[in-house]
């Protein structure tokens, strides 16, 4: 199988950024019609390498060969001409333009100076049909869910006749269903002779879809792996450089008093449509209640309502027995609630502030850190030094702006802030999204530690594996309602998966028996 001709070859490439050797003598071979998996921790140099292949950075050393001949890629335009297409981790789509306009941008179909939208539109429909992409060419990007936006990115590459496709963490933002859809599309592409570089943190996916795996660690090639002879554990240890415990170890829960009680809660989404439609839930101290569900079934709005970030339409909720409905976020925080928000860039950090100031965002006004007029930067710095060390934030420089950290380390800053405040109720939304195995392991351990210390934890995640491995009870949310609550023993993947799709027939059948 490995006999196929190499379409892309990277030889001895190095890239230095001020103070960092991002890529050190990397070799890579991609063969025609195959998928090459690229694995590595956050900051291992995967994106740097891909950006060099796509012409966004210039390599300091080494060469790139496309179809056997050395090429000079000075910019994305050169890469596109060589048939290289890239789907970036953060989609490069213009929100206010339509699918057609986004696809044709930079490679416009024109007659004279005028755009020929109709021709581009036809071409998109053809591509869409050929690969089962199913995208409406006239839709505005802003109206599309992420899964479809990703397909638009793939169409963008195909429209430019790419036969080498780089997918940079394509599944990080997808639901399990959308991931299945993506894999189907990838299969169709491979059959047409497209070669794919697949970057991911999710070992299971890499094992499933890739023909060959290249693992990077700290800017160097840590090794190759043949997916047929590898396991998740072997890949993980290759990636991190030590053995990683993928299974979460935890003792049985010892639930205590009720800490959160939600009664018939209703809330609307940003467009004013009902999103949470009558949620009833109870959570006790010392347990982890996982909320599983396909994204967009009201989890986001539920969490925002509970943390005071979204008005409650109807119903109430009680924290430690006190009615907190409609309280502003500050009061919820003061009540001993920690919140790891879903969108860390938007709701979790102030990107322009330093790490040390981000670490006191919800406590800067307290007497430890300020008197009435000024904040005490020395106390804030001491606090930051301690937390940065304890939570292993890299680089451990407290005066760097938080926005400059990698995604995983930004998340560690948030976790450090929220977990270190001695909270009694933790609401964690997608706490490990986009993180590498090492960071995930660490954050999971912290969550368990908090549970054992007697906090109640509401865990919302679209990663079914994460919910199932951490939770003591699993609630499934579907179309704004909790359609079932299962003890962890009864929550196997199939049952929860069915509930996530809204199926309750078997439940009724059981009841009838």
């Amino acid at each position, binding site marked *: 199988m490995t006999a196929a001709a190499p379409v892309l070859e990277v030889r001895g490439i190095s890239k230095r950024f001020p103070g960092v050797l991002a890529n050190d003598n990397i070799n890579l071979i991609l063969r025609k019609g195959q998928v090459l998996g690229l694995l590595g921790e956050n900051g291992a140099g995967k994106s740097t390498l891909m950006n060099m292949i*796509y012409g*966004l950075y210039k390599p300091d050393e080494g060469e790139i060969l496309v179809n056997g001949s050395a090429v000079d890629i000075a*910019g*994305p*335009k050169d890469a*596109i001409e060589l048939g290289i297409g*890239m789907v*970036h981790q953060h989609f*490069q*789509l*213009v*929100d*206010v*333009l339509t699918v057609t*306009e986004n696809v*044709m*941008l*930079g*490679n*416009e179909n*024109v007659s004279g*100076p*005028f*755009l020929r939208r109709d021709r581009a539109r036809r071409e998109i429909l053809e591509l869409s049909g050929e690969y089962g992409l199913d995208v409406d060419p006239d839709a505005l990007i802003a109206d599309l869910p992420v899964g479809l936006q990703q397909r638009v990115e793939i169409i*963008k590459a195909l429209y430019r006749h790419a036969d080498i496709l780089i997918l940079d963490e394509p599944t990080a933002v997808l639901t399990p269903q959308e991931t299945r859809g993506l894999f189907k599309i990838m299969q169709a592409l491979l059959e047409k002779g497209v070669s794919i570089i697949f970057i991911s943190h999710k070992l299971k996916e890499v094992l499933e879809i890739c023909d060959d795996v290249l693992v990077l660690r700290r800017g160097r090639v840590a090794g190759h792996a043949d997916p047929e002879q590898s396991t998740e554990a072997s890949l993980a240890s290759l990636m991190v450089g030590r053995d990683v415990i993928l299974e979460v170890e935890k003792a049985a829960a010892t639930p205590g008093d009720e800490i959160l009680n939600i009664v018939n809660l209703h809330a609307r989404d940003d467009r004013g449509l009902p999103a949470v439609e009558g949620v009833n839930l109870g959570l006790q101290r010392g347990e982890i209640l996982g909320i599983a569900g396909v994204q967009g079934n009201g989890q986001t709005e539920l969490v925002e309502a509970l943390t005071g970030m979204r*008005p*409650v*339409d*109807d*119903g*109430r909720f009680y924290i430690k027995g006190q009615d907190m*409905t*409609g309280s502003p976020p500050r009061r919820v925080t003061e009540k001993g609630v920690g919140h790891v928000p879903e969108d860390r860039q938007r709701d979790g950090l102030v990107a322009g502030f330093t790490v040390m100031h981000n670490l006191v965002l919800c406590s800067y006004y307290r007497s430890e850190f300020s008197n009435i007029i000024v904040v005490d930067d020395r106390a804030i710095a001491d606090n930051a030094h301690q937390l940065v060390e304890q939570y292993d934030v890299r680089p451990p420089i407290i005066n760097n702006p938080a926005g400059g950290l990698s995604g995983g380390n930004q998340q560690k800053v948030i976790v450090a802030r929220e977990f270190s405040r001695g909270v009694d109720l933790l609401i964690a939304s997608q706490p490990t999204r986009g993180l590498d195995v090492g960071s995930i392991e660490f954050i999971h351990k912290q969550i368990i530690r908090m549970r054992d210390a007697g906090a109640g934890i509401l865990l919302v995640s679209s990663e079914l594996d994460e919910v199932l491995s951490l939770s003591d009870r699993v609630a499934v949310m579907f179309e704004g309602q909790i359609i079932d609550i299962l003890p962890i023993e009864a929550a196997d993947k199939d049952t929860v998966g069915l509930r996530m799709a809204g199926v309750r027939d078997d439940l009724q059948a059981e009841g009838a028996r």
Partner: protein
Amino acid sequence: MSTPDKLKASGRPGFKLGRIRIIAIVLLILGAFIFFQAGGIDGDLVTTLTFEKTSAGQSPSVGNLDVPTSSYLRLIGLLFLITGILNLSELRAPRWRRTSLGLMVLCGVLFIPTVIIAAAAGNETNMTTIVAESLRLATPLAIGAMAGIWCERAGVVNIAIEGMMLFAACFGFTTLFYLRHTGLPLETAQLLAVIVAVFSGGLIALLHGWLSITFRTDQIVSGTVINILAVGVTSFVRREYLLSTEAGAAKLGNISIPVLSDLPVIGEAIFTNQPIFFMMFVMLAFTHIVMFYTRWGLRTRAVGEHPHAADTLGIHVNRTRWTNVWISGMVAGLAGAWFSLEATGSFNDGMTRGAGFIALAAMIFGKWTPIGAFGAALLFGFSDSLGIRLQMVGVGFPVQFLQMVPYAVTLVVLAGFIGRASPPKAVGQPYVKE
């Protein structure tokens, strides 16, 4: 806890004070006001609307329209009240909903004629002149707004339109001032003056581009610098070179558009006019077509919204921005030429009187679209001409209040039907390649 919160929390199907209801309440208040005001007007009073270019009494009035003021106002008042009530009750049935929304639009459309009719009660007012004056006064605002669109759609804030206009007005006039006695035919000299004005706007824009794109200076600061510079340099030029006994020069002459200028009422009023006035329409069409139907426009909008995305597709972000800023400056230069060459035939210190900023306001009002901005500029022009007209007619209370009315109406309509304006997302942010 505020009242709406309480309602929400208690679980009753709360009364929501949405946009439509807010407009409905405004309509109710206005309707009641108009209705009862109408009662105070003598029932025999008649407002005569004429549609002739010439002043009253000269020609047999083809298009005179006599409106019984009091009855008309009562009728309008009732219409407003009914529309208000219908919309306040937010009827669910789609047919009623459509009817009530349609009535709301009708109220908006009828409002401006109503203001004129009420203000000119018992008098005669020339509608054609009002329309023609509005368009004329809107010219620099509309062209200035187009300049803003060129720049901001590419992601560069252009607060310097005022300064560019002033520079252009000054240098354009200076050119004419020195050319008029060189033996060149007047029209050639004027044409050269306009061209110099356009290019001096472009030149100043290059300064803006240099500061804000190349050196990534804050775009607001760069624009402010240009505005201050413009005041200083132009008044210096005027004092040093333009002060003389014969400081005036001929204004740009009228052009008649063939065929169209023979139309009965509007022919003379609108289609026989000065060249920059006509350029307003050309610029409107040009800007609209380029922005939305050409490759350049698509790239410009992409660069203004998400420059990095454009970059990954091989589009040169800063080159696109430079070109757009330059074009913006030239368009602003044309607007500047209106002041010195078309409207007055002279140059005075600070003669643009903030028109550049009003043009920017028109651009925002029009949501960064050429047609919207043109509509907004017309509204500003209308307000100006209404003020002039009403001062001539002589109404009993401060003219400024009536001048305010069109803005108030538009605000309500905009808030109600169109919603929040969102600027190009990357506007004001210099693009740095990582």
